[in-house]
C-alpha cells in the first residue's frame, strides 16, 4: 500500500497521514500521563491519609528534611523544563541540530544535577543519620512510629520521582542520538514534543512533592 508515495522520516505504516501519526502520538502520551497521575495519586492519597492520622509526627518528620536543597532542586528542575521547551522550539523553527543538541544536553545536565543533589546532600545524609526505614533506622529517641511512616513515604515518593527522572534521562539520550542523525526537521519533531510532555510532567510531580513533603507543617 505504501510504496506509491514517498514517506517522511519516522512515518509508520499503520497511519494514513503524518498528521494522524502526530495526533496519535500526542494523545498516547497524554493518556500515559493520566495513568501516571493515578499511579502517583495512589501514593499521594496514602500520604494524605497518614498525614491526617499522625499529624504531629508528620510535621516532626518534615523538619528532618533540609529545605534549601529541596528549593535548589525545584529551581534546577524548572530550569530544565525551560531548556527542554527551548529544544523543542529550536526544532520547530528549524535551528541547527547543534542548537537542539545543546539544549537537550543542558536539560540532561540539569536533570543529572537534580539527582546528584538528591543523592549526595539528602539521601546520603539521611543514610548517615539513620533516617531510612528498613535500611538504616535509628529507632531510639524522638523517632516515633509516625516519623518512620513519614520517612517511608518521603523515600517512596521521591524515589519513584527520581526513577522517572532516570527514565527521562534515558529518553533524552535517545533524542540526542536521533537529533545527531538528522531525524528531525521543522516538519517532523513529534518525538521531541512528546518526550517534552513527559519531562514537564515529571517536573510538575516535583512541584507537588516539594511543598507536600518539605514546606507544609508549620515550619514557617
Amino acid at each position, binding site marked *: *500500500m505504501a510504496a506509491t508515495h514517498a514517506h517522511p522520516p519516522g512515518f*509508520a*505504516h*499503520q*497511519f*494514513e497521514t503524518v498528521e*494522524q501519526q502526530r*495526533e*496519535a502520538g500526542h*494523545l*498516547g502520551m497524554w*493518556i*500515559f500521563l*493520566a*495513568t*501516571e497521575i*493515578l*499511579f*502517583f*495519586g*495512589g*501514593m499521594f*492519597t*496514602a500520604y494524605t*491519609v*497518614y498525614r491526617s*492520622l*499522625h499529624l504531629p*509526627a508528620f510535621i516532626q518528620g518534615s523538619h528532618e528534611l533540609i529545605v534549601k536543597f529541596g528549593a535548589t532542586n525545584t529551581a534546577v528542575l524548572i530550569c530544565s523544563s525551560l531548556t527542554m521547551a527551548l529544544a523543542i522550539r529550536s526544532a520547530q523553527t528549524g535551528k541547527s541540530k547543534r542548537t537542539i543538541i545543546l539544549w537537550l544536553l543542558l536539560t540532561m545536565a540539569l536533570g543529572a544535577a537534580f539527582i546528584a543533589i538528591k543523592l549526595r546532600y539528602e539521601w546520603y545524609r539521611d543514610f548517615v543519620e539513620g533516617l531510612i*526505614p*528498613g*535500611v538504616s533506622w535509628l529507632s531510639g529517641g524522638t523517632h516515633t*512510629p*509516625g516519623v*518512620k*511512616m513519614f520517612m*517511608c513515604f518521603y523515600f*517512596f515518593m521521591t524515589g519513584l520521582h527520581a526513577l522517572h527522572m532516570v527514565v527521562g534521562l534515558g529518553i533524552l539520550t535517545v533524542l540526542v542520538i536521533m537529533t545527531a542523525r538528522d531525524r528531525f526537521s521543522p516538519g517532523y519533531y513529534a518525538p521531541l514534543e512528546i518526550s517534552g510532555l513527559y519531562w514537564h510532567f515529571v517536573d510538575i510531580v516535583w512541584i507537588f512533592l516539594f511543598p507536600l513533603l518539605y514546606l507544609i507543617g508549620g515550619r514557617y
Partner: protein
Amino acid sequence: MSTTTADLHGAPAEPAVNYLNASYGIKSWLLTLDHKRIGLLYLGTITLMFVVGGVAATLMRLHLVEPQGALFEPETYNKMFSTHGIIMVFFFLVPSIPATLGNFCIPLMIGARDVAFPKLNLLSWYIFVTGCAFALYGTVAGGVDTGWTFYPPYSSLYAQTHVVAVALGIFIAGFSSILTGLNFIVTIHKMRAPGMTWFRLPLFIWALYATSLIFVLGTPVIAITVFLLGLERLLHVGIFDPAVGGDPLLFQHLFWFYSHPAVYIMILPGMGVISELITALSRKKIFGYSFVAFSSLSIAVISFIVWGHHMFVTGQALYAGLVFSVLSFLVAIPSAVKVFNWTATLYRGSISYEAPMLYALGFIGLFTIGGLTGLFLASLATDVHLNGTYFIVAHFHYIMVGGAVMAYLGGIHFWWPKISGRMYPDMWARISAAIIFIGFNLTFFPQFMLGYLGMPRRYAVYPAEFQVLNVMSSAGASILGIGYVIPLVYLIWSMRYGPVAGPNPWKAKGLEWTIPSPPPTENFEEIPIVTEDAYNYPAIEAHQYPDAPGVARV
C-alpha cells in the same frame, strides 16, 4: 463497504496469502507487530492460564465433596483457592476479551491497518508473559494462601508463602493492561476509517473504549498498592501494620478502588461481544444504539465510585456505607438498559440458534441472575448476613463465568471463522454450549443456597448438613470442565480440517466481514469509506441471502 459481492457467488475460498501464512517460523510470531497475530499470542497465553486456574478450581470442588475435605490439608486448600482466584482474575479474565478479541477485532472493525502503536502492543504481550511467569513461579514454588485480595496484615506480616513473587507478577501484568488500554483508546480515537463516526462504531468498540478507560485510570492504583504491599513485606516499615500506626483498611480502599472497576473490565467487553452476537444472529439493528453505547461509558464511570460496598462490614463509617450502597444500586441502571435493549433487539428478530447465539442467550440469563443478586449484596442489611458466604461466590461467578466467560466463548465462536478461516463443527459447538450452561448452573446455583444458609467461603471443611448441595456443586463443576474441554478440541481440529468459512459465514454486517478470512496482513486493500450505520440489517432482504442462517427458519 455497502456491498460484499465476493460472498454472493460461488464457493468461498481462502485467500492465498493471509496473516497466518504470510511468514513462517517462531521468530515471525515472537517478533510480529501484526495486531491479529498478537491477539493469537494472547489467546494461547490466557488459555494456558485458564487451564491452570481451572485445574485449581476442579481440585477445590473435588476436595469439598466431603465435609471434612477429601484431598488436602487445609493449608493446601488455602493455596488452591488463592491460586484459582489470582490466576483467573488477573491473568485470565482481565486480559481475556480485550487482549484477544479486542486486539484482533478493533482495527478490522474500525477500518484500520493496525492499532496505533504496534510495537507497544507487542511489548504489552511480553510484559504480560513476564507477569505470568512470576505468578506461575510463585504458584509452583509453593503458592500463596492470602486469597486473591492480599489483605494485610496477614499478607504483609504473617503469610509464609510466595506473596512477593505473585504480587510482583500482578504488578507487572498491570502494565500490560495499561499499555493495551492506552493503545485501544488512541486507536479508536485516531485510526477510524473515513466515515466511521463515533455513532457508527460497532458497540463492541464502545465497550472496549469504556474498558480501556478503566485500564488506564484504575490499573495504576493497584500497581502502586501492590508496590506498597511488597515494600511493606520486604522492609517491614509498617505502612499497613496497625501495631505501628499503619492502616490495613487503607489497603482495602486502594485495592478495591481498582478491583471493583476491574469487575467491569471483565464484564464490559463481554457486553460488547453480546451486542455483536445478538444483532448478527437475529439480523436486526440494535435497539437503542446510543443508550447501549452510553451505558458502557456510564458503567465505567460509576465503577469508580462504588468500591466501598466491598467494605460494609470492615468498620467503615455508617454514612460512607449508605452512600456506597446507593451508588452501587446505580450500576443496575445501565446494566438493565443493556439487558432490556438486547431483549428488544431479539424481539421479532430472525433468530438463528447458532453456537454464538446460544452463548449470547446464556449470557443474558446468567448475567441477569448475577446482576440481580448483586443488589442483595449492595443493600447494607442483607450484606451483613450474606457477606463472606458462598452467596457472594455464587454471585460473582454468575457475573464472571456466566457473564464474562460465556461472552468470551461466544465471541471466540463468532469470530473464529475470521480468525482461522475455518468453521468448527456446529453440532459440537451447540452441544458444548448447552453442557457449559447446564454445568455452570449446577455448580453455582447450589452455592447461592449454601451461602444463604450460612456456609462461609474459603473454608476447607463444612458442616455435614451442607454436603448434598456441595456434592451437586462439585458434580456441576465436572460437567462444566467437560464443556470447556470440548471447544478446545474442536477449535484446534477445525484449524486444519474444518470447512473453509469464506469472508462472511454469518452474513453479518461490519467491516471485519467485508475482507477475506483469514484477513491479509494489511487488513484492507484500500481503506474503506463507511457510509452507513452499524448493524444496518433491514437492508438485507431474505431473498438476497437464501442460505443465510436463520432465514430458512422464519
